[in-house]
């Protein structure tokens, strides 16, 4: 079971590295916001995985709150870019 955790953490880190490269390179604000949205979903999956690794039931609450509230920042930035805030 440990080798599955190692492989998963490595794949999540690689996906986050690609998102950070897009965040630095991205030509406009839309590309950077897309990178932030992707990193939010990756981090929710990573928090659930860490709570399973530590075997603490209460740690999954952090992932729950992050999944509930994580999209508000992206929506506010998108409404500002649209010019309708």
């Amino acid at each position: 079971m440990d080798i599955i955790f190692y492989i998963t953490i490595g794949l999540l880190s690689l996906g986050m590295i690609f998102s950070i490269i897009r965040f630095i390179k991205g030509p406009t604000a839309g590309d950077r916001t897309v990178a932030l949205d992707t990193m939010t979903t990756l981090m929710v999956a990573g928090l659930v995985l860490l709570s399973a690794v530590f075997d603490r039931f209460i740690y999954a609450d952090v992932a729950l709150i992050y999944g509930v509230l994580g999209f508000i920042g992206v929506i506010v930035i998108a409404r500002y870019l649209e010019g309708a805030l």
Partner: protein
Amino acid sequence: MNYLVFIIGFLLLVLIGAALYAVYQKDLLYAVIATGVISLALTGLFLVLQAPDVALTEAAIGVALTTIIFIITIRNTVRYEDEKDNVKK
């Protein structure tokens, strides 16, 4: 115990890189998006360092409230740093 060192080091690198990007960026909207990346890395770091209550507070405040307040500030003032002279009244 080796993978925890890897996770902490990776999240610290992301944190410091996003903070330097937010400081040296002239476009303030990009700096606000970098602030979201900072709060994301900080949440993961607090969870790895066995402080779930602090991570809960950081996830609630850093993601939603900070971004909303900074975006409203940018909308009421200016977006670029060079436009300091003609602030909208």
